[in-house]
């Protein structure tokens, strides 16, 4: 098992290097340079050239890449042109919002998906199973951004139950009120994300339960006279819980990628909205930093899931 984990880590190293190289080259391919915006337009072109030379912009690309990586490890991602502040501070302010929303959505997803998965597996091939299968299938097929738009229209505008913009109302004072307002703002996107993102967990749990139903330990429990309800709750469910928990990493990865849409529709000030805005302002330092951060978060998410899965599921270890 340690071998698998070690191998998984070793594979990650070249992936990170290639990712950083790719991001760096993409940043180079974007028009503009780090001085765009911070220089007076009347400045002497000679002076700009001098500035670029002392900042190493005429160096060969590998030298520039190395400098960029060194800066990266010092936590220096450059300055945002649009907001005129360090990118790290800018993202720090937004990252919390995105991560809270993702975490909340994930918890809700599990709350909805776990009972559905067990229920569908328990009543395999019967009506409840069919209903759940159709439900997960329909929710999976519809593009998520359409659901978000229709959801905000019905529940945000027409019924007026939920706020439609921002992450906190402007008049929130006091600790309780602040937390309440924040929670209120992530409730609708979280609910929509959870209701329409159950398919993976439900399907996996369903097949786990169906497998377990015919296994020896369940038969033993049943012949001992353990009530059916307890068999499902304490024997089968507990056994399938760990692999299901391992899905959290993949699930976070998916939610982060979806955050671009969620945050755009709900004008929720997180990293996804920051990315979309930065693209329209051509704020390249921010864009580069965000692509890198999302890539690394994706990597860590899959790493986490892979490791947990390889611990709990020996079938995966044999490669």
């Amino acid at each position, binding site marked *: 098992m340690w071998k698998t984990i070690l191998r998984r880590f070793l*594979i990650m190293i070249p*992936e990170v290097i*290639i*990712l950083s190289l*790719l991001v760096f080259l*993409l940043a180079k*391919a*974007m028009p503009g340079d780090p001085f765009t915006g911070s220089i007076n337009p009347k400045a002497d072109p000679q002076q700009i050239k001098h500035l670029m030379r002392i900042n190493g912009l005429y160096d060969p690309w590998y030298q520039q890449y190395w400098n960029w990586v060194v800066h990266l490890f010092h936590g220096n991602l450059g300055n945002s042109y649009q907001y005129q502040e360090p990118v790290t501070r800018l993202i720090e302010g937004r990252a919390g919002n995105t991560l809270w929303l993702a975490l909340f959505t994930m918890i809700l997803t599990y709350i909805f998906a776990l009972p559905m998965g067990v229920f569908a597996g328990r009543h395999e091939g019967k009506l409840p199973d069919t209903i759940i299968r159709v439900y997960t*299938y*329909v929710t999976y*097929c*519809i*593009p*998520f*951004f*359409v659901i978000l*738009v*229709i959801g*905000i*229209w019905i529940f945000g*505008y*027409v019924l007026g139950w939920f706020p*439609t913009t921002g992450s906190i109302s402007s008049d929130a004072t006091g600790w309780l009120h602040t937390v309440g307002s924040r929670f209120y703002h992530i409730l609708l996107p979280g609910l929509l994300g959870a209701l329409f993102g159950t398919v993976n967990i439900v399907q996996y749990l369903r097949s786990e339960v169906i497998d377990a139903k015919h296994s020896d330990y369940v038969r033993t429990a049943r012949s001992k006279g353990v009530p059916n309800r307890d068999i499902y709750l304490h024997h089968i469910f507990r056994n399938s819980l760990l692999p299901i928990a391992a899905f959290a990493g993949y699930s976070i990865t998916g939610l*982060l*990628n979806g955050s*671009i*849409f969620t945050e*755009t*529709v709900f004008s929720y000030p997180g990293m996804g909205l920051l*990315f*979309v805005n930065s*693209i*329209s302002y*051509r704020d390249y330092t921010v*864009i580069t930093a*965000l*692509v890198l951060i*999302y*890539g690394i978060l*994706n*990597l860590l998410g*899959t790493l986490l899931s892979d490791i947990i899965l390889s611990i709990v599921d020996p079938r995966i270890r044999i490669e």
Partner: protein
Amino acid sequence: MAENFEQHSDISAADLARLSQEAQAEATPSTAKIIWSEFKADRPAMVALFIIVGFIAFVMVGALFINTPKMMETNIMAYFNQPFTPEFWLGADSGGRSVAKQLIVGSRNSIGIAIGLTIVSSTFGICWGLISGYFNGYIDWGMQRVYDFMMMLPMTMMIIVLVTIIPHYNSVTLTFIFSIFYWEGTSRLIRSRTLAESEKDYVAASRTSGTSHWKIIFREIMPNISSLIIVDCTLSFAENIGVETGLSYLGFGLPSQTPSLGTMISNANDPNNITQYWWTWLPAALEIIILCLAISYVGQVLRRAADASQRQGAAD
């Protein structure tokens, strides 16, 4: 031929006809026949199929009769015209442009890109999966690492970045940019099936008798997993409609002067539009939902047809 045959044999022509009929009846029905009988057994699937084919044909032909630049001209007299009027069936948007016409041209563009994306990305994914699964060694290992790396990239962001870097793009370049990031699902599926398939006897026999690798892969293994390929293409077609419209919705797909279902839904970003002028975006949203559900449903029926144990249509 039967007459010729009769001269040298005791079997009469009538017997021969009966025998060949029997042989035909006993032979495994062709894939097309299985799929057709599956659709005949499932009424809703038939309806879904007709909706899709009819709708795609309608927008493809209908869009030919619409002059797009003229349609996209601003007509201030028709500013947010109400829907269900003789001139504007589905009303008009903030520029006085007919929503119904935009819907037709937009559907043509979105569906066209989705078809193109499905063809390009599936072809690539199928080849990747077949080669990776067949060679199953260092080649497979290397290809799997590339796959892992692609899965790690934040896809939506990468596409948006690429779209902004490329100065001039049209629907063809857009299709290729999308395709870079959407072949992984297909390739993984095909690889796992190819792994199983290449351990079968017919592959080993073919290899011993000296058939070239490429011939085994594309002429022998691929036809054997063709039903899987058909199912996967249908399902990814439904998904790809969401890909293009989603990015157009964010403003990074088709340029805003080219109508797409996604750019039409982005009308809903304006708080006034979303409540008061619902007809500017709701039809496009509903159309995407219905289209995606119908296509996926057809995909499900095809999946049933591909799996002999789940068939409903076969007579036996």
